[in-house]
């Protein structure tokens, strides 16, 4: 009777505890959290698309434990503003050409639907669209170079570090997946939280990194051989992890795919070899993750 009362008491009190999910999952494990950290010129909509692409890989469970998904949304104003400025100048210098601002989104997001519609109606718009995409590619390097000196950088890193610390206290195993400039934020947040960790409870999958180093214990990452954006950054900045996985050649030549750099359209595209490489690295790290020790 006492045993049953005790069990009843535990079951009533557990939902009130911050660690309630720990005791409710097999083996005392509270599951996984997969974090996505977005890259350059990605707005909240595009960043959520990236998180959706990751959640499609693992759904709600991994290793019989729950998986939750979270977006660390990094500031991307700089490059967006460059493209906006280029468009505004072109409109001003070519009166009567167009003020169709919807055209900038194909440049920033990848894809060509909106541009194609406009060019079908007015072929003279093709040079404008082409100019915007050239601006994008030219300005990538300076935006990456100035990233850490941006006043938005450290507050964002602090937010992400705080979230990683929370997962640790909740005993959640964490996999951080970063794309493009997101890697710079991930490295900084990882370095801040790592000294607190008593077990191997935080791992990374670093995709298209413009940084000089990665945080995978074996130095693994995935960068496409046809990622023209990372190639441009490497040319300008020098110290960048080299490309290591075959990418699509024709798709990379098209500005519609963000020059072979886009996370969802290129790296997570099931038609290319990049996705299996990312999945293999994520599988390996998920398997290696240990439950955080209190």
């Amino acid at each position, binding site marked *: 009777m006492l045993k049953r009362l005790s069990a009843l008491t535990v079951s009533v009190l557990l939902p009130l505890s911050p660690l309630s999910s720990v005791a409710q999952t097999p083996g005392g494990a509270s599951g996984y959290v997969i974090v996505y950290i977005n890259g350059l010129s990605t707005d*909240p909509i595009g960043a959520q698309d990236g998180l959706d692409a990751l959640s499609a890989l693992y759904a709600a469970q991994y290793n019989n434990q729950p998986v939750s998904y*979270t977006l660390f949304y990094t500031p991307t104003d700089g490059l967006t503003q460059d493209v906006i400025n280029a468009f505004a100048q072109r409109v001003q210098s070519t009166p009567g050409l167009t*003020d169709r601002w919807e055209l900038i989104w194909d440049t920033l997001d990848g894809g060509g639907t909106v541009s194609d*519609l406009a060019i079908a109606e007015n072929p003279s718009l093709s040079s404008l669209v082409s100019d915007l995409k050239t601006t994008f590619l030219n300005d990538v390097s300076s935006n990456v170079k100035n990233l850490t000196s941006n006043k938005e950088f450290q*507050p964002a890193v602090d*937010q992400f570090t705080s979230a990683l610390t929370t997962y640790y206290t909740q005993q959640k195993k964490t996999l951080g997946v970063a794309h493009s400039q997101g890697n710079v934020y991930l490295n900084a947040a990882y370095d801040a939280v790592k000294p607190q960790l008593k077990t191997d409870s935080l791992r990374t999958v670093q995709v298209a990194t413009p940084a000089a180093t990665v945080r995978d214990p074996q130095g693994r990452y995935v960068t496409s051989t046809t990622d023209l954006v990372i190639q441009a950054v490497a040319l300008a900045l020098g110290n960048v992890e080299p490309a290591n996985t075959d990418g699509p050649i024709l798709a990379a030549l098209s500005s519609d795919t963000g020059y072979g750099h886009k996370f969802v359209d290129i790296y997570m595209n099931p038609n290319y070899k990049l996705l299996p490489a990312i999945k293999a690295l994520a599988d390996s790290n998920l398997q290696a993750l240990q439950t955080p020790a209190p």
Partner: protein
Amino acid sequence: MLYRLWFVIVLSLTLYVVSGCGNGSGKSGTPTAAVTSITVSPGSTTILMGKQQQFSATATYSDGSTKSPSTGTIWSSSNTAVATVDGSGLVKGVAPGNVTISVAVGSVNGTSSTKVETVLATLDRSTDVAGLDKDNNGVRDDIDQVIAGFGLTASQTKALTQFAAALQVAILSSPDRSSAYANAMELHRGQECVFSQLTADSTKYTKQIKAFTLNTQPRVMAFVGFSHNASGAVYPQPTGTICK
């Protein structure tokens, strides 16, 4: 006896067909008149993407009479990626561009040059961020038209409308980090709703709605402001009831 009756019926039918062909008003062709030309109406027109318009054909015969050819007409489109036409002359706009709609009767052809107008030309480009929303559903009226033009199911259309409404709120009411965070969560919820209805096709539609909504400099800048205020924050994946 039965055989003779059958013969009479067949003979009567034959005579009726021969004498009845082309019979009637003065505008009809004579039994021997051949089709010399065909015209298509309307001669030139504009059709919105996703909308339909009925075309008709008028045949001119060798005796000078005119009438709508009742049989044997074959309709065709010079570019079905721009507009399609069915066997009755019903034309549907598919994508922007110019297309020629043709009709043929036997060896005689008639054509009509038809421009299918793009949705871009109908977008609201007023100077204010909000634009016109006469039906007060939280989505600009031109964006309602764009969504309707996709020709999707009712639930898919509702999901895209939820996304478009969340985007409209984001650009209108995100003056600080707190409001931008709440609006980003709703926007993500709208995206998840669209994803639940359209799966792999969802981004094709959300990208277009986003671009057509953010189609003027003030609207682009309002979205940049929202994105800025929403950045540097942590967003859990929306769960529970995602479609309103």
